[in-house]
């Protein structure tokens, strides 16, 4: 490839329509961080191995680093910045604070997005199931057991309301 080409990408990010003229090589992750200033989604390895960049695309969790922005034409993307409503934290964000499910905080947005996907997928019938589901999200500080406790607690609350 000698020179870059650009393409227009239209999508919805956290409920807002967005139109961008992007280098076709731009990943969804770099689109969020570098073009939209949504730096809550983190770049940890840029190889799909750490999960720090987890976002929801059409309500499914994906590694934003392995997704080209151009693949998201017409898609609805939800990031960590889009899960609070009217300044009220998402129940899983509150649970993460309660259980101190973080230390440095860098993997935390990705953990929360995966946690939301885990609860939506119903993979919360046991601690073991949560641990398996959440194993794509590395936490080098080692907050795993607190993360599992937070996800299980929110899953139970959600189940109780049903």
């Amino acid at each position: 490839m000698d020179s870059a080409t650009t393409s227009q990408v239209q999508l919805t990010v956290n409920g807002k329509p967005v139109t961008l003229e992007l280098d076709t090589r731009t990943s969804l992750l770099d689109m969020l961080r570098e073009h939209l200033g949504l730096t809550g989604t983190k770049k940890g390895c840029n190889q799909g191995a750490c999960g720090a960049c987890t976002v929801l695309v059409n309500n499914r969790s994906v590694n934003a680093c392995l997704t080209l922005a151009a693949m998201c034409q017409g898609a609805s993307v939800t990031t960590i910045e889009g899960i609070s409503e009217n300044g009220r934290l998402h129940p899983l964000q509150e649970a993460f604070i309660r259980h101190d499910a973080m230390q440095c905080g860098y993997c935390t947005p990705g953990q929360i997005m995966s946690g939301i996907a885990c609860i939506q997928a119903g993979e919360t019938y046991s601690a073991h199931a949560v641990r398996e589901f959440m194993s794509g999200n590395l936490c080098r500080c080692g907050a795993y057991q607190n993360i599992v406790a937070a996800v299980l607690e929110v899953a139970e609350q959600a189940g109780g309301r049903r």
Partner: protein
Amino acid sequence: MSRLIGEPLPRVDAPLKVTGRATYAAEHRLPDLAHAVIISAAVGKGRILEIDSRRALGEPGVLAVISHLNTARLPYRPHKGWIDPTVGERLHVLQDDFVRHWGQPVAVVVAETLEQAEHASHLVGIRYEAEAPSFTVPDGESIEPQGGYPANYSRGDADQALATAEHRVDCTYLIPRENHNPIEPHATIAQWDGQRLTVWDKTQFPTNVAEELAAVFGLERANVHLICPFVGGAFGTSLRTWPHTTLAALAARHVGRPVKLVLTRKQMYFGTGYRPETWQRVRLGAHSTGELTALKHEGIAETSRYEHYIEGLLNAPRFMYSCPHVTTSYRLVPQDVHTPTYMRAPGAASGMFALECAMDELAHELRIDPVELRLRNEPKIDESRNVPFSSRSLVQCLRTGAERIRWHRRRAEPGALREGHWLVGLGVASATYHTLRNTASARVRLRPDGTAVIETAAADMGPGTYTSLTQIACDELGLPPEKVQVVIGDSNLPRVPPHGGSQTLSSVGSAVLAACLAARSARQERAHSGAIAGSEIVATETSQPGDATKRYSMHAFGAVFAEVMVDVDLGIVRLAHMVGVYAAGRIVNPRLAHSQAIGGMVGGVGMALLEETHIDRRDGRITNANLAEYLVPTNADIPVFDAVFLDEHDPHVNPLGVKGIGELSYVGVAAAIANAVFNATGKRIRDLPITLEKLL
């Protein structure tokens, strides 16, 4: 108001972290920002013959290809931060055509966008004259390290005592190189304004970044400003200011625009330090009743050819147990690598792995319970210095841990406990880490509106500096947490030691305490004098350790108990449970301390079972420089751990009575797991990590 110290206050910065609003080094937004990508050397040693930038420069958006061919010689004034090796000189980047290690930065591409810079970096043609690098740990020519930890130590006559000992063990332990691998990559944004330089850089040592850049570029220290409010994990890798920070500043100056430079995950294995590979031989002599009569501990570690990285590998063996005849010897083997650095529990994690495994081997040899063996060798004083411990609660840690893991289930005979397809084993190890404290300063501003601001050049890589300093200030100023703001991560704030070595709370906490006391008395004075209220009260204090370190030996202690299950046929090791019991002085925040302790234990699991940096010895390439092949513990690897803190009051260590737990909780874990694996299988794995092929 109730006191906050000792209370489980939720992490004060947690709302920022769970909403993505905590901003890390690469996340500061600047207009006109250009992107830089490093080109890493593709030979392990040699010279650069040619750099052909024509294709790269022809790409749209590419602003520059910077190498030794087109950049000025930098002043590189002498500068040694607290964390730089005493012997040797830091790597001078892009200053000549020599390649000293695989992956050394040899050029930087700067472009309008990240995509353009990354693509162009692949179009730069570099020809090398390659030589064969050498990797000879442990057998290569070794040197006696200077400038800190002693190369040789002895009391009594260990050789003679070993020769006449009733029982002996003699074992060799290998620990591979390990990389810190925080999830946040190293990143720097650099911006020049004439001779003034501002950097947003990932660091555990804010003032040192400014000092190092001032030295490298020949600037006034006051003209360099570092900003780093959040650190996405570091574990030691962000203590030193590495060459990429210089490169970001160099690139920004070269193109006359602010530049962002983020290391790739792969590049983090080539230039930001690591725990050195070590070889250790431990010989123990003992009476049949268990009392140690001799201890001889030798260690050899890798370092680079341009710096001698040293750590306290053999500190603990000199005071851990009572023993009349002790010899330690520590050597370095320089190799064609970049310089190792402090990684969580530097020295102690490696040295205590060997010592605590050897103690387990001795217990087995003597048919004495491993907990009991340690109790029988409990010293009354630090026998290496002939001074008392300021406090030492190892015995209570061992007893409490044994109870909590139900140690009585353990059978002395390996392989005796079995659950279906799994062999079950229990193992124990002691832990220790020295209690550091260094001179630190802090400033307190009491505002007219009744709020307070605490300012200090500390950092928070995850343990909770923001929260614990808030608690200290609240108690001293009589304010609720919502009225206290802690500002850290800025080189213009009062100077403190590096955020490492478990010394932040002992050093910075003491300074905040002192500054709060000064602010409070200023407030009282003002009230008494009837002066007009309404202006801010500012108090800056410096707190330094007294001579208590001369009179006391200061260390935190702990005991780690692991329960493992090993698949009978496949050799898979699973952790069933782990208990860590710690005596670390006062615990300022039990909630955050628990997180830090279980985190240290998780790190130790990585050391025990997973982590190993592979070097292709033909050319020096690291073959698993990514998070898919360099394995770290995942959620599925980790059950619920039990971390317990004993009540311990130590009036000597520092005004707060804290000892630090960040390093302590990492120590002993690998040994406890290795000892549990032996108890399960009868196999001694003396080279980490304990992978299944070693158990088959």
